[in-house]
């Protein structure tokens, strides 16, 4: 078994993500209504439906980086809000990290995930514990880094990342927010999960599922 992910995986990831986000549209809206403005599910669903259309336009020999770049530009031009530029930058940086490789092995995959996380920090200036999507991404990147160091394969790496992201999203619940709209709430944000951390966990679980389906 080739221990790498390729363009087919990238496409499968995005198709799965679009499905999962459509299913979770209302759940994400509800989370965002509680501590934000109630549009996160709508924004993500609109964005990924648009990505699906643009994927069709990609050449057959598109690389994983090409796929990620289309995702980036489409999200930037269709999501809006805070999440649009943040996820857009994340996918753009991941695409740049992936470069023109046709396959990404474990280290390359972890480098792409790390670049994505760093892109979000670059734009949004959030730190871990600020109750944002970073609280899903940073544990995910840490877990992926540890997994690759332990010699794990790509599916295992993505499994570790997704599980860490899910735990990270759940761990935002007791936090007070210091970035984004929830920060206006002070203590009243306590007890609510951050919608962006939750959508990040869903995205990373979709990445894992796409790799699992292939292997």
């Amino acid at each position, binding site marked *: 078994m080739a221990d790498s992910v390729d363009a087919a995986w990238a496409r499968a990831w995005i198709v799965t993500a679009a499905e999962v986000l459509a299913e979770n549209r209302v759940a994400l*809206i509800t989370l965002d*209504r*509680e*501590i*934000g*403005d*109630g*549009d996160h599910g*709508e*924004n993500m669903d*609109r964005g990924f439906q648009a990505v699906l259309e643009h994927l069709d336009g990609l050449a057959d020999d598109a690389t994983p980086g090409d796929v990620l770049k289309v995702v980036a530009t489409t999200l*930037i*031009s*269709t*999501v*809006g*809000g*805070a*999440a*649009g*530029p*943040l996820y857009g930058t994340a996918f753009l940086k991941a695409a740049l990290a992936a470069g023109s490789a046709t396959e990404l092995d474990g280290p390359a995959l972890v480098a792409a995930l790390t670049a994505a996380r760093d892109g979000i920090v670059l*734009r*949004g200036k959030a730190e871990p514990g600020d109750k944002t999507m970073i609280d899903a991404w940073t544990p995910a990147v840490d877990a992926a880094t540890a997994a690759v160091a332990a010699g794990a394969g790509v599916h295992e790496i993505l499994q570790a990342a997704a599980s860490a992201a899910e735990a990270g999203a759940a761990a935002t619940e007791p936090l*007070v*927010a*210091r*970035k*984004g*709209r929830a*920060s*206006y*709430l*002070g203590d*009243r944000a306590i007890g609510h999960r951050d919608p962006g951390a939750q959508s990040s966990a869903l995205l990373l679980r979709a990445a894992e599922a796409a790799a699992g389906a292939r292997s």
Partner: protein
Amino acid sequence: MKKLINDPKNVVAEAVSGFAQAHSDIVRAELDPVFVVRADAPRSGKVGIVSGGGSGHEPLHAGFVGFGMLDAAVPGPVFTSPTPDPIVAATKAVDGGAGVLHIVKNYTGDVLNFETAADLAGAEGIEVVSVIVDDDVAVKDSLYTAGRRGVAGTVLVEKIAGAAAERGDNLAAVAAVAATVNSRVRTMGVALTPCVVPHAGEPSFTLADDEIEIGIGIHGEPGRERIKLEPADAIVDRLLGAILEDMPFEAGEEALLLVNGMGGTPQVELYIVYRRAAELLAERGVKVTRSLVGNFTTSLEMQGASISVLKLDAELTELWDAPVQTAALRWGR
């Protein structure tokens, strides 16, 4: 959810198209990507002014496009900042060679999307300067938050910067006036009821029959503090108290007093609020020399109001009085 709409997905496109038809003497609308622009744009040699943000705050921003105010407005989906594309398109459409000012309310989404748009427009050779509006005193400690929000004070920034651009000030000067207004205006709001975002279909939060939210923003997000309903005068005292604590006045200084409805508030209530606010300012020795009362920066059908106080000087007063001809604000022509 009961609304006079068709498909929730088409709310913004249909409203913008109706708006442009109703005010075709003042504006035209582009629908792909969506933005509203002065009928006579671009005006050669004049600094262009573009603002925008999520929809649902009407008349902000499209209602302020026209002579003496904005050159273009970019409405995003309801309560969601627009993406960079339409901002870039609007920026190009109003560039008359003297550069373009972006007036951006301080929300993460607005800031990030306008930032990207400014970069892209700059790459195409248009000089863009951005001014961030953050007039909301409800957000207390900006060290631990995304910073103060841009709320109803935005209207005053847009009017006064628009007048500066109209008289021929250059980009740096127009941006400086906008920044000055922002530094001299403070706002604080209250909500009596929540609002329902069309695509969400449910109220943004719930309030008991005897509860109100103090320090509300304009996106249906909960406020800072939930208290029991009080008489209007007591609520005004809270709101104005917070404003004056943040921006003290010396006796004799002049102010513009804006009482802004959140969309679903009867006009009698706005004037009851105005009355008490004016009374309180007079007690503090502040001279209210200009006033504005009505729905200017709304949250759909939310009931509630915000109070804004702008510290005036001769220059700002003159720019405020300058002619303006937009769908929602008009005088002097």
